[in-house]
């Protein structure tokens, strides 16, 4: 690997620091009573309202359908993810130092696996929140579940929920593609 590629690989690793500061996913909700919208951002270590009290207000709405309270402290993945990204950054830097293209492939494979695992996990959480409802809920609509879409929009009673990747996700994608390019260019060496 030449110096340029090593630098690029280091950049791919270091740019993941940005993931600590931006959400990776966002769920926006629209309803007539919320003309300015309400929603939450999911980052690697937290779930936060888009506006200051959105999470509290979403939980307030959800209690009518018997959905569990969304409480970031009770989601263990949010504790683990910062370490996974820490590992990716450090190992990426080491690989840039060693300069072996094969290691990049290995790193990329791991990254993609983490990403898939993350999305599956997110789906499962969504499934659990949407299906595992309190039987004492005031509002029970036969056959209705409230799983938010993994990606895209879905009408849930009066609320149209839209789930989309956020900046952190795109940073990860960019990091992957830089690493992929580095591997592609340097494997011929």
């Amino acid at each position: 690997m030449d110096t340029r590629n090593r630098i690029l690989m280091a950049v791919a690793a270091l740019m993941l620091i940005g993931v600590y500061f931006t959400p990776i996913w966002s769920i926006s909700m629209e309803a007539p009573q919320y003309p300015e919208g309400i929603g939450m951002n999911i980052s690697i270590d937290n779930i936060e309202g888009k506006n200051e009290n959105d999470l509290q207000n979403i939980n307030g709405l959800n209690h009518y359908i018997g959905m569990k309270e969304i409480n970031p402290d009770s989601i263990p993945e949010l504790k683990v993810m910062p370490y996974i990204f820490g590992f990716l950054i450090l190992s990426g830097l080491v690989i840039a130092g060693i300069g072996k293209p094969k290691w990049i492939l290995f790193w990329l494979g791991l990254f993609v696996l983490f990403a898939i695992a993350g999305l599956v996990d997110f789906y499962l959480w969504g499934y659990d929140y949407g299906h595992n409802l309190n039987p004492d809920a005031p509002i029970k609509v036969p056959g209705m579940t409230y799983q938010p879409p993994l990606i895209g929009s879905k009408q849930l009673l009066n609320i149209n929920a839209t789930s989309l990747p956020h900046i952190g996700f795109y940073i990860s994608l960019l990091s992957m593609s830089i690493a992929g390019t580095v591997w592609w260019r340097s494997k011929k060496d």
Partner: protein
Amino acid sequence: MNKLLKKSLLWSLAAITAMGFISMGCSSNGEFGSSSDAAQKVYVAPGEHDEFYGFFSGGYNGQMGVYGLPSGRHIFTIPVFSQAPVNGYGFSEETKAMLQTTDGFIPWGDAHHPELSQTDGETDGRWVFMNENNTPRVARIGLDEFKTQEIIEIPNSAGNHASSFVTPNTEYVSAATRFSIPMKEGSLENMDVSIDSYKENFKGTISFIKVSDEGHMSIDFQIMMPGFNYDLSHAGKGPSDGWSFFTSYNSEEANTLLEINASKNDKDYIAAINWKKAAEYAKQGKGEMIPGKHYRNYIDHEEGGIAKSEVIEEVRVLDPRKLEGIVYFLPTPKSPHGVDVDPTGQYIAAGGKLSTVIPVHSFAKMQDAIENEDFAGEEQGIPVLKYDSILHGEVENPGLGPLHTEFDGKGNAYTTAFISSEIVKWNIEKTEVVDRIDVYYSPGHLMIPGGDSENPDGKYLVSLNKITKDRYLPTGPELFHSAQLIDISGEKMELLLDFPTEGEPHYAQGIAAEKVKKNQKRFYEIDDNNHPHATKSEKETKVVRDGNEVHVYMTTIRSHFTPDNIEGIKVGDEVYFHVTNLEQDWDVPHGFAMKGANTSEILVMPGETLTLKWQPKKVGVFPFYCTDFCSALHQEMQGYVRVSPENSDTPISYSTGQ
């Protein structure tokens, strides 16, 4: 009857019929002004906002109405001087103190003149002040939360009418007594004397209330005045900044049948007050501190927004007979009502309600006359200037009963004529009428947004009419007052809209919506709630007995109370429900009403704590419930209190969801 006569009779009949139709169509009530063109100008589409806020005094309802302009939509009522069951103002433990006076708790007031705070002579959207006429007071309303934040009582005054007008940087809000009363020389104590000793004993005062940067009001000084009736006021601006002008009538000093006896003099006076000079005297400790007990009630933001009362014992009084150069009388025909200073600050227009002209004084000429001591004489020790020396001009043919004037910032003044029921537009420099328009009926004040400031928004004018009669669907003998919106953007005034107003708006103020919108609070941060009885989570809710006082620390969130089952209350207890609304979203208030409580409900805003006091008188189980349709399960938002006999030993217990 021959044919010819018949024919001519028929013709004239036809002509009369035609004339009748024409005159009917020709708007004896302004209908022609309200064309579809006018409708478009006042149409604010669903979901859109008005261009201006209008703050209208509620007159004898004691409150302040908030209207959107140009639509005329009534968007809010701010409780100020009267108890308001709508949200518990003046009823709840937190707000009762706002209505305390030296005469005790007064549940009602007569609100007259709203005035927006100003910076550099321009409305700034921080506060709106309003005076109370009956029990002399001035209120300050915060436009961040549309809530009365402070009320100060005016001592040594009886009837606070010429109030609450601000100086160009809101240094002062003024007040002046409408009804002079006998006051002891030296102590200004009200006297037990014969009413017909008026000329000998009766006096008036003009007060200047200092306003701090935070809005704190305190009476800096009062000026002793002859026993006239002080009616209205406006502060000078630009070149006349530092002066305030107060109209007076009853310079005859009559004490009975004033309609005749106070209408005799050809001229009464505008009192020109050099408040800057008076403030200097006050600062130097001149004048005298005399007893003048008065209340200052204010929302204590340091302690949960609870209203507190402070009693102030003394007030500084300046005697213009001893302190030179603070008061001059400008002779003005005839029983003048309004006094209005044009945006340039050069001219002072008076509404001599019995006068056939509108006199316009020149500030520059007034100053020259003072400098040259060009006096006509003295009135009870106060120099009187010469009418002809200070006159800029007289507006001829201004309509009958001119009362109030506002300005468009384009060199024009607009004056209401009560008796001839019209608004007259006149050129200030030329003092000539340039346009007039009928209004329905009998206008009192009028308002142009910023129309009494240095920078008017000369687009709309609101005529505040005193007589309504047939303008709306009839509602029996008692009617809302009527306001009319007039387009003043062109050469000719054009009537656009009638809209009803609550109470009797006297004066009003208008301001570009942007100046106020940007400061709006949407709810109170629960973390910042420093109310001593706040309950910040359901876990902290409790019921505490202290002798026969029971304190219920209760929370609300959609759609339940915590606790909602309370036992152990006894007949004869004093139960305080301290209700904290845990919601943290815009427009999610919860109400609280208790069966049998001798007070109003309370309406608790998100993050706020309010207290309702209940003294149960009967044994049994009594419901309470949320009065605001807060959510889909609002009807379920209820609870019960069990009341046991006085000597029973039912223990205190409370729960939710068990």
